[in-house]
């Protein structure tokens, strides 16, 4: 018997947490029970990206794309799709307005170009043979036997690849600097300390295709002359760590890591260091100090890691997504890569699309794609048709992009020009129900927590900014406070020691620039237009509309609504905690929020 069907089950963290493992086991069990175990291969893959509709199960060659699958659906999937060759209609993902399922209709995938995520959702990340079959380790072959380190650097320079960790430094130059440094020992480091709230691009890459990073690091070792690689990954990524460990073991067993790789005479091995989840450790010098066993605090640059990095030796440090691009660039050539995306920012970018969006998930698009395409075509628009307000890119280091810039092609430089930044790829969508001050306060709270405290501009600045935002949200701030925030923010940008402090004021400065009316409303009218800042919100019952149904009084968690049955109710403003329960419970629109 030959295998005629493949069932791909998403094994990313998002789907795993909604029972993907159980689904995987149930499918295998059902296939055996129904006597088709040898006709079908069930594969657990990396993230499909369409996390909104997870868990995802895809059946080939029928190309049935099943969404929000439950373990109990396994019986029907096997009985219908595998045994009878019919699709299970109720599980298929149907694009709005379509009657028949066609995989090419899924808008979420139409505009995506998958280079970094080429194997995610396709191969079993725990099986090195599947990676090898997809031209895995072919780039390493080419580098070891056909290319000099100079050739590799040239290829990268031609590709125009820029670091995907956020700053966008040209990768070819970085490799060349580290290669040129003289030392008895050099290191290759992978920065997998992904810390932006809402971002999970690197985690998904490592979970779905760990070998792509291992291969690229080995290529880097050969290029700069290092025999040791270190992956710094946060301990709260257990699945990614487990898959990396499996991948490293398989690579070692096959001689793709270790001594004399493929008989080339080149030695290289990789180890994993776990981080404790401090945001500042994503900053390269702080990360290196943490690996050394010291407290994770940044050190001034220069000296740059390329000259004096880990244990004072020249160190090449790149982020996960940057590495994942490298094998493809080596195989297909720098000029091929340079042809994708925009002139100054070639290639693709992976974004973690979250917030008030219909299709949240992992998307990879060519640089130069507009925000409108990402939010409306791929993301399927805003939830509940509330008007779009802004997108936060670059996490706590970035800024907001407003609807005026929906048609701006996204690349490293265009985002900086409009006061935000690419960052590592977190993209949080906000609608008109979100208060921009509340969001800025959230990020500033994060920065206060995560500031390492070494330099005063960051340690004191973030706290000061937070306090002012807090005053704003309580309606106690003045115009002078707003002016002060700008002065402090600009000072932090210039004086803070590392990227964390230099960029921490960005969410405040950019939202002040693009939403001055929101700030004004909080200062002058003591009013929060979105109704998010609790101290500025008042719920009131309109006695004309209230019919005295008592629903609100029963819902109120603090029993501050009083009134007889069939008589208009009243809210005791002193006791109200502004939870909004009454507002959403009232069926007669009698409760107003202002």
């Amino acid at each position, binding site marked *: 018997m030959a295998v*005629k069907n493949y069932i791909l089950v998403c094994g990313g963290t998002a789907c795993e947490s909604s029972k993907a493992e159980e689904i995987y086991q149930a499918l295998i069990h059902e296939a055996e029970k129904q006597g088709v175990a040898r006709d079908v291969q069930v594969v657990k893959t990396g993230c499909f990206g369409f996390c909104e509709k997870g868990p995802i199960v895809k059946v*080939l*060659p029928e*190309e049935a794309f099943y969404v929000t699958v439950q373990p109990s659906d396994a019986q029907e999937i096997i009985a219908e799709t595998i045994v009878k060759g019919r699709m299970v209609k109720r599980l298929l993902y149907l694009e709005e307005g379509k009657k028949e399922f066609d995989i090419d209709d899924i808008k979420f995938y139409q505009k995506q170009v998958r280079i970094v995520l080429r194997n995610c959702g396709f191969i079993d990340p725990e099986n090195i043979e599947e990676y*090898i079959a997809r031209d895995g380790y072919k780039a390493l*072959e080419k580098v070891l036997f056909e290319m000099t380190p100079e050739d590799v650097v040239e290829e990268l320079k031609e590709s125009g690849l820029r670091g995907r960790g956020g700053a966008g430094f040209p990768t070819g130059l970085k490799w060349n600097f580290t290669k040129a440094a003289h030392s008895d020992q050099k290191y290759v480091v992978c920065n997998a300390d992904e810390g932006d709230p809402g971002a999970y691009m690197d985690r998904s890459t490592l979970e779905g295709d760990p070998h792509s990073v291992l291969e690229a690091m080995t290529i880097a070792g050969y290029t700069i002359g290092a025999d040791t690689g270190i992956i710094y990954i946060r301990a709260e990524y257990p699945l990614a760590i487990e898959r990396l460990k499996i991948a490293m073991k398989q690579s070692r067993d*096959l*001689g793709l890591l270790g001594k004399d790789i493929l008989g080339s005479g080149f030695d290289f091995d990789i180890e994993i260091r776990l981080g404790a989840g401090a945001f500042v450790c994503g900053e390269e010098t702080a990360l290196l100090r943490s690996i050394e066993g010291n407290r994770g605090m940044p050190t001034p640059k220069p000296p740059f890691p390329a000259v004096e990095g880990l244990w004072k030796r020249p160190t090449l440090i790149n982020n996960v997504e940057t590495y994942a691009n490298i094998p493809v660039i080596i195989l297909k050539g720098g000029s091929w890569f340079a042809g994708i995306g925009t002139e100054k920012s070639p290639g693709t970018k992976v974004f973690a699309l979250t917030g008030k969006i219909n299709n949240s998930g992992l998307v990879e698009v060519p640089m130069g794609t507009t925000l409108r395409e990402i939010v409306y075509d791929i993301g399927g628009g805003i939830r509940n048709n509330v008007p779009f307000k802004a997108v936060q890119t670059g996490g706590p280091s970035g800024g907001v992009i407003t609807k005026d810039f929906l048609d701006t092609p996204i690349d490293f430089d265009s985002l900086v020009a409009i006061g935000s930044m690419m960052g590592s790829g977190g993209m949080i969508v906000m609608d008109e129900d979100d208060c921009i001050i509340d969001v800025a306060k959230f990020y500033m709270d994060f920065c206060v927590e995560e500031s390492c405290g070494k330099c005063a501009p960051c340690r004191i600045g973030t706290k000061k900014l937070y306090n002012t935002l807090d005053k704003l949200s309580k309606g106690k701030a003045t115009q002078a406070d707003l002016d002060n925030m700008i002065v402090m923010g600009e000072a932090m940008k210039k004086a803070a020691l590392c990227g964390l402090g230099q960029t921490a004021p960005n969410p405040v400065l950019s939202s002040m620039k693009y939403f001055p009316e929101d700030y004004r409303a909080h200062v002058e009218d003591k009013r929060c237009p979105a109704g998010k800042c609790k101290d500025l919100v008042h719920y009131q019952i309109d006695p004309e509309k209230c019919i005295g149904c008592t629903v609100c009084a029963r819902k109120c968690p603090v029993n501050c609504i009083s009134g007889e049955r069939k008589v208009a109710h009243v809210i005791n403003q002193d006791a109200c905690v502004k939870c909004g329960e009454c507002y959403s419970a009232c069926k007669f629109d009698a409760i107003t929020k202002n």
Partner: protein
Amino acid sequence: MAKMTLEDLRKLREQKKGEMDKRDMEGKDVEIIIGMGTCGIAAGAKECLDAFILEIDKAGLGNVTVKQTGCMGLCYVEPTVEVHVPGMPDTIYGKVDAAVVRQIVEEHLVGKTLVNNHIFDRPAADIIRN
């Protein structure tokens, strides 16, 4: 597994490539659809499907997908197989056993000529469309 040489790695890649290609639907323009209704299965459609997978592997054809469907209505000549090759008329073959499968692969898919004596119909495209 033992440590590999360059040759071993290349061999392993070639060996596994075909298997992975089956999962990749991009660029696959040839379709084989096998009628797997009760009538078809009773007449040997399962063996027919196995034979197709085997023969396509043997011929090293990477651009073919093999799918199954229900009864095509030609129960008197089961097992029935519909073949789509770009640039050739869509064809339904009947009474397809392992030997005919081999013929279809060699002549229709590779040689681009129809297999005589087993053609029973063309798909009723005008009906299917509605």
